[in-house]
């Protein structure tokens, strides 16, 4: 029998790996994928808690986070594409127009 904390460890590890990726990678698209990974890790934890503790709350919340994530991805990719058209780059380090 798999216990709750095993699911939570998997979920937190996914969150940590995603966070590491956000800090470590310089490619905006990869950073954005890592952010999706973190959101999904939260979903896994929600469903696990919901299953082991009883109650629908967690499952319903996942429904909302998936919707929010989808909307965020659409807008985010539109911004990335628009910027790429201007600058021909997706590297964070090369985005340096905003400096004092």
């Amino acid at each position, binding site marked *: 029998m798999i216990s709750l904390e095993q699911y939570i460890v998997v979920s937190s590890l996914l*969150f940590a790996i995603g966070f590491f990726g956000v800090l470590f990678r310089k490619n905006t698209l990869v950073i954005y994928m890592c952010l999706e990974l973190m959101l999904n890790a939260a979903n896994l934890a929600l469903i696990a808690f919901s299953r082991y*503790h009883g109650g629908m709350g967690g499952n319903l919340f996942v429904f909302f*986070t998936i919707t929010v994530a989808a*909307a965020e991805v659409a807008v985010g990719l539109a*911004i990335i594409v628009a910027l790429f058209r201007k600058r021909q780059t997706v590297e964070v380090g090369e985005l340096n127009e905003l400096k*004092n």
Partner: protein
Amino acid sequence: MSAEIFQKIAETNTWSWIMPELAMGLLALSLLVLEVILPKVAHGAIPRIAILGQLVILGHVVTGICTGTLPVGEAFGGMLFFDETGQLFRVFFLGASIFVSYLGMVSLDKRTLPQVEYFHILLVITAALMLLAQANHFVMLFVALETATVGFYILVSYFRHTTVSLEAGLKYLIMGALSSTILLFGIVLLYGAGSNPALAGSSEDSLNFGNLAGFLAANPDDTLGLIGMILVISGVAFKVGAFPFQIWIPDVYQGAPLPTTALLAVSSKAAGFAMLLSFSKVFSALEDWFYPLLTALAILTILFGNFAALTQRNLKRVIGLSGVSHAGFLLIGVITARTVDWASIAILFYLFAYLLASAAVFSVLVHLNKDDDSDLTLDDLGDLAKKNGFLGLALAIGVGSLAGIPPLAGFIGKLLIFIAAFKAELYGLLGVAIVGVVVSIYYYFGILKSAFFDLWKFQTDEEEVPTAIPGIDLGFLGKLAILLATAGTLLLGFYQSPFSSWLLG
């Protein structure tokens, strides 16, 4: 079965209580419809319709508050909680939205960009923030917050013909999405802690603020709840721009279109504090952790914001960093709310003063006739007082109020927070805050200096100036807007009896 469902829907969902938000949503939708049905020549009227509609809604809310007819209590199955603070936040967000609409109207008129969509998104953001301030459930809070955040992503990158706007949009996107994720994970852990049936006080609906507060009161040493709280506070600290999470502020404020910068500075920050005020009730059982955390954030935020602003030349960066320090002062207000019960009203007063002052400053900046408002520097203010005395005066009053110079509203706001901190015996924080105020006067004075005292520079190079800058045409609406903002700042500085009646009563 179906009758039962409809009965439950009708019972729990009191739509009439969220009339202002519904009206905002409908207004936003009708703007899109108007764009389709109105002839092209009449499109200029749409922003005016948006402003007018918001004024009507604002009037509705204000009369509701004055007559005391607005509802109090839970609604929508515990999703929302209505109280006086929430109503005042409604007024605040509506007021901010009206000013930003005006700024957007002026700013977008100079550019060939889609116009109506800006106001549409602005109205939806405002409605979401109004719901956010009254949220009583983490699902509602998260959905409302994300609606506002996604709207902000779009508005920050709205001037997509400029690289800076898109770059600011991308930076805001990554930082915003990261903070939302951290907030979400915190909420998840709180849910996991509060829904555990093995513990006392647990509840199936543990995302409800009341239930969660009850659980935390029964289990104040719950590690999971504690980690969840820290993550949630980190997520909110990002929104208000508190110290370790402020790195996005200068860049995004600089690159964003001027109206969006104003919206970020005012509404986004106030939304963070609306959340913090709700959380201070939810996490009251964890106060041994909650308040030290906020104290550390407040000290670092005030010091960082003020000292970083000293070296800036770019106006929008200065305003952004000064906004960071304002967030620090407001954090002191949240901390004092633990012991001083009128501190939440002091926070609201501070926010209103900040709104009026920012409105004055941004209304002046938007008239400076720069094509690219991301590189507005202090030098662009040169000779402003000479060229247009009215604008110069408005800028002086706005900046003076931000700096907290008596007798302007900003001074009273700071004074109230400081008195509250004194009453709560937070002398260390008070000392840091006063250092912050003293430092801030230096760079605020720098803004005024470049607007006024560059007058004498003209004697040396008289010939290059008069032709270089075209005159500034404010128009009737512009004059009215600036007049309102400055008059409000002066009025709140001299006359605070509605607020003082709250403080005393």
